[in-house]
């Protein structure tokens, strides 16, 4: 607070309201376009699906930036505070990449796992493991 005069600050708030509202409406329009509600057939094109998803994600990130920097006044805080809050969230980018890739791998292995589950175990093969006790191997026979 105390940045610029009161009238300017008041106007900035309503500008912010307009920006967030407009971005939300654009997001919904892009999403409906992606699902083929505005022009039929768009839902079948994979580049539309991915392109629209990318646009929506970027617009959401912009909304997040706008709320944090203007509404929560992060823009007026000292760099140390800004970095101590924002840098840790950068870890989440790696979290997203890692877990989505992992999820994708589960999806791809679904059929393989179903097949493997049907395979009868071969009792002639004993499990080889340093930590396995001899008793366990015996009881497996």
């Amino acid at each position, binding site marked *: *607070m105390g940045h610029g005069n009161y009238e300017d*600050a008041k106007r900035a708030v309503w500008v912010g309201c307009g920006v967030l509202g407009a971005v939300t409406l654009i997001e919904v329009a892009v999403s409906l376009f992606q*699902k083929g*509600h505005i022009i039929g057939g768009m839902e079948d094109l994979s580049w539309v699906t991915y392109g629209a998803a990318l646009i929506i994600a970027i617009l959401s990130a912009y909304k997040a930036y706008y709320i944090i920097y203007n509404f929560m006044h992060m823009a007026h805080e000292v760099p140390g505070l800004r970095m101590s809050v924002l840098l840790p969230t950068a870890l989440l980018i790696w*979290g997203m990449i890692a877990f989505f890739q992992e999820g994708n791998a*589960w999806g791809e292995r*679904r059929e393989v796992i179903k097949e493997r589950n049907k395979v009868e175990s071969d009792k002639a093969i004993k499990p080889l493991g340093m930590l396995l006790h001899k008793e366990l191997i015996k009881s497996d026979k």
Partner: protein
Amino acid sequence: MAHDTAVHEDVHGHGHEESTKELWSGGKQPFKISYGKLMMWYFLLSDAFTFAGFLIAYGALRFSSPSWPVPDFVFSTAPFGIHHAPLIFVTFMSFLLIISSVTMVRAVQEGARENQKGVVFWMFLTVVGGAGFLGCQAWEWTNLIYKECMSVTRNPFGTHTEKGVYLNADGSRSAAEDDLFKPGIGYLIHHAHVDDHGGDHGHHDEGHELTAEEKFLADANSIVSASIAGNKIDMANLPEAGVDFPGFRLNNEGFIERKFVTEAGETGAQTYGPKAFGALFFFITGFHGFHVLSGVVFLIIIMLNAGSGLYAARKNGYEMVEKIGLYWHFVDLVWVFVFLVFYLL
């Protein structure tokens, strides 16, 4: 000191020594922000990680699943009998939160000017916005739970993975245009309506022509009712494998799973969608809703305190209002991502 000359030459170094002494003597705020606001920021940071964990789990499960409920199909109803209006109701909910965030900024601004009446007025509008959002969420949940029969362990929203055409209730191939489907088209499995009241509750409004799906459901429901009347099936005690009918299957929970023929000529039947969807939806939107609820409670408490003149006496620019303001904007911020993940993508 060993580096005497160096210290004397370096004016900044000398100044630093002094200010360190001052910092350790207390009374200074690190990051030039009050303790309460700083801790609110770090609480919100930790909360952001909690939400991120949930949303990343949603993403990982969605990526791992061959099909996933289509959001514009799942979330296409609104109050006052509005159907087939994809995303409209949740967009309205988003606007409620955005506007309540804006009124919160105004309350903080009035607080900085020590304007007691202004603070109470704008905080009151914020409370109205938050309560409105909660009301909308209550309607959305009620609709999903009681009308569409979704629960934490059951997800009646499925998605087709092949091209095909539905069968009529009597087992013949449907000729209706609406009964053709292609991969990615969603469907909702309905519970059989055979209760004493004989009504099928609000599946269609009176006066308009039945859609192909409504026609099928009406036929299927009367076939099931006839079987019950003839003592062939007992709805309270259905077999584990369900009951087979020419055009549909009645599963062991009493849901009508419509049969179809794929382009390859294979006969199949609708099945439940990925089970995780229900649990993820209720848990994540519920956790966000709980944040909104607790936010509204704290807003009311702080609004009453402001109105009583407590903060005016403190003369600290209504710092409590700033703190609840940070929290409230965070709730709006989380909704941006819940909205993105559950409804837009």
